[in-house]
């Protein structure tokens, strides 16, 4: 059975390579930019899928966690501490390589937080916030939970929009590249387009492998039991509160990571990334993907995000997602491809077992 669990992950990896080769062969590498962004957005959708589809908890505030990741990284890597160079704390941090010297556009030197350190802080912050918010919020159900998470998302959006340090309505720009290997970094440069595409999708593939593993383990069964009947799960000895909280935190970290990397890739972040409509959009993707189908969510996320980023929906961008939400929930609350896909995967699994 072990092989079959990861077969789709390998298929995904093959598809990623195939897409890159296809765009290279047809000379349409510029698609890779949107596909890279799609990968990061998919990361949020996957985390939300685990939360909504498996643990059964809705969140209308996940753009907030994306913003926490993106803005933390953007603020820390663009702030200038060179005036505090003589401060022993600052110089200590600089010696530990937590701070990095950069040359700005005008040839001057700035001392700011190293992207890796900023990323670690962003993830830690997302963990902390999701823990602090999650404990009280996840006790709520239904409308109360939806409104509380919506409220959280709105608070983050208002703070971002009202704070000068976060660039208010303009957002933060000129975020430096995120160095990975010598010469390779997460950034928007055309020369690194192919690398960035692979890096983003590798991140998605690894997350996917981890999530697939998770949902087929004890934890996954516990989560499904919470979705099915929380009280019954509790009675059976499942620590529902803990499972819900850790799922919430995991999805928050995925969203924050997506925020960090997309911000470095785009070289900036704006308040629209924190808007409620973004959160709703992620919920729409999970809903279309079939609420509880990771693969369905991934496929729909790729299709919808790519079309949206390429501008196929024009000015009706938000309306399309609203329409999708209504249509799916009215006519096919189980998603449009979720059920079928699971059947296909099962069939494949059976084949690989019998052929052994």
């Amino acid at each position: 059975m072990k092989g079959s669990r990861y077969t789709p992950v390998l298929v995904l990896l093959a598809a990623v390579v195939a897409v890159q080769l296809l765009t290279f062969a047809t000379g349409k590498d510029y698609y890779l930019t949107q596909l890279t962004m799609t990968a990061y957005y998919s990361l949020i959708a996957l985390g939300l899928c685990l939360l909504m589809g498996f643990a059964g908890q809705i969140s209308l505030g996940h753009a907030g966690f994306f913003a926490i990741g993106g803005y933390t990284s953007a603020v820390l890597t663009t702030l200038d501490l060179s005036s505090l160079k003589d401060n022993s704390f600052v110089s200590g941090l600089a010696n530990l390589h937590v701070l990095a010297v950069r040359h700005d556009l005008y040839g001057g030197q700035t001392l700011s937080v190293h992207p890796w350190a900023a990323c670690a802080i962003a993830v830690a912050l997302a963990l902390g916030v999701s823990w602090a918010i999650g404990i009280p919020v996840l006790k709520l159900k239904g409308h109360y939970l939806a409104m509380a998470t919506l409220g959280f998302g709105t608070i983050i959006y208002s703070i971002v929009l009202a704070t000068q340090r976060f660039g208010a309505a303009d957002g933060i720009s000129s975020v430096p590249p995120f160095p990975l290997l010598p010469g390779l970094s997460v950034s928007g440069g055309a020369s690194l387009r192919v690398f960035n595409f692979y890096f983003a999708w590798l991140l998605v593939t690894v997350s996917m492998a981890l999530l697939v593993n998770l949902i087929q383990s004890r934890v996954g069964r516990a989560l499904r039991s919470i979705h099915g009947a929380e009280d019954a799960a509790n009675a059976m000895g499942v620590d529902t509160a803990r499972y819900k909280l850790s799922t919430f935190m995991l999805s928050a970290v995925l969203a924050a990571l997506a925020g960090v990397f997309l911000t470095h890739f785009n070289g900036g972040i704006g308040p629209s990334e924190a808007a409620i409509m973004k959160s709703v959009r992620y919920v729409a993707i999970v809903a279309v993907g079939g609420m509880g189908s990771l693969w369905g969510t991934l496929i729909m996320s790729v299709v919808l995000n790519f079309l949206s980023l390429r501008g196929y929906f024009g000015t009706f961008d938000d309306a399309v997602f609203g329409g999708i939400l209504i249509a799916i929930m009215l006519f096919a609350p189980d998603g449009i491809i979720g059920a079928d896909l699971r059947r296909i995967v099962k069939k494949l699994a059976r084949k690989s077992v019998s052929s052994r």
Partner: protein
Amino acid sequence: MIELFFQYLVAGLTYGTIYAIVGIGFNIIYNTTGIINFAQGEFVMLGGMTAVTLHAFLPLPLAIGGAVLITMLVGGLIEIAFIRWLVKPSVLRMIIITIGISILIREGALAVWGEGVRSLPYFTGNEVSALDLGGVRVSPQVLWASSVCSVIVFLLNLFFKHTMLGREMRACAANREAAALCGIPTDNMVTFSFVLSAGIGALAGCVVSPITYTQYNIGTGLAIKGFTVAILGGLGNSMAAVIAGLILGVLESFSIWVLPTAYKDVISISILLIMLFVRPNGLFGNREVMRLKDF
């Protein structure tokens, strides 16, 4: 200083009335269906926008009347098209559907009216006219808003207590199946609750339009404030929602003494979150009842 205090108080009460009306709108639909209609704020926007458009060729009272009727029609149509025929939908499904509806209304409004900020003219006087109430200057529109809100609350009270339709709606809220067994057309009651709540929202949208202005995207913010009010007062309790609305409006108004205006929303939503965590059954709710209920 004391004048400034009262000035803030009046401003807070003005916003408080509209929050209260949105909160009442939530309650009307919640009471008959158990649904929180996330598109509630959009009714307010729709009412204001339609009235502004109608006012181009109709006198003000007719424009407002027309706008209220059109919004009621929209509310009814939404219920018939999206909600009526669902058999026992889950809460999650209803939340997502009403969110989808709110997005469609908002995007529709953007397509029709654009991004511009609009407003109705002042009902009496203009921007600068003010009544002097013992040193505090109050715009006549504020009086319009608060009196319309009071009348709405008063009439609703009469309606639910003393008319056949109102009683049928309450029966539907208390126990839908029992109401159906008594021959009450529960489906129609649900449609009617959407019509009623859309109408109230639209009227509120018209009355406050001169003061707060109307834009295609004001709905979400109003919906969250309205929900805060509904929760503060205890979900389903319309009279308490009025008091809660005024409290929220005043708190928000005074918050700018402590924090910049831009953080006003943060204050009121924090109140919502704290309420949800501490007393999800509202300020006036019963603690004993709270223990038995699921939140």
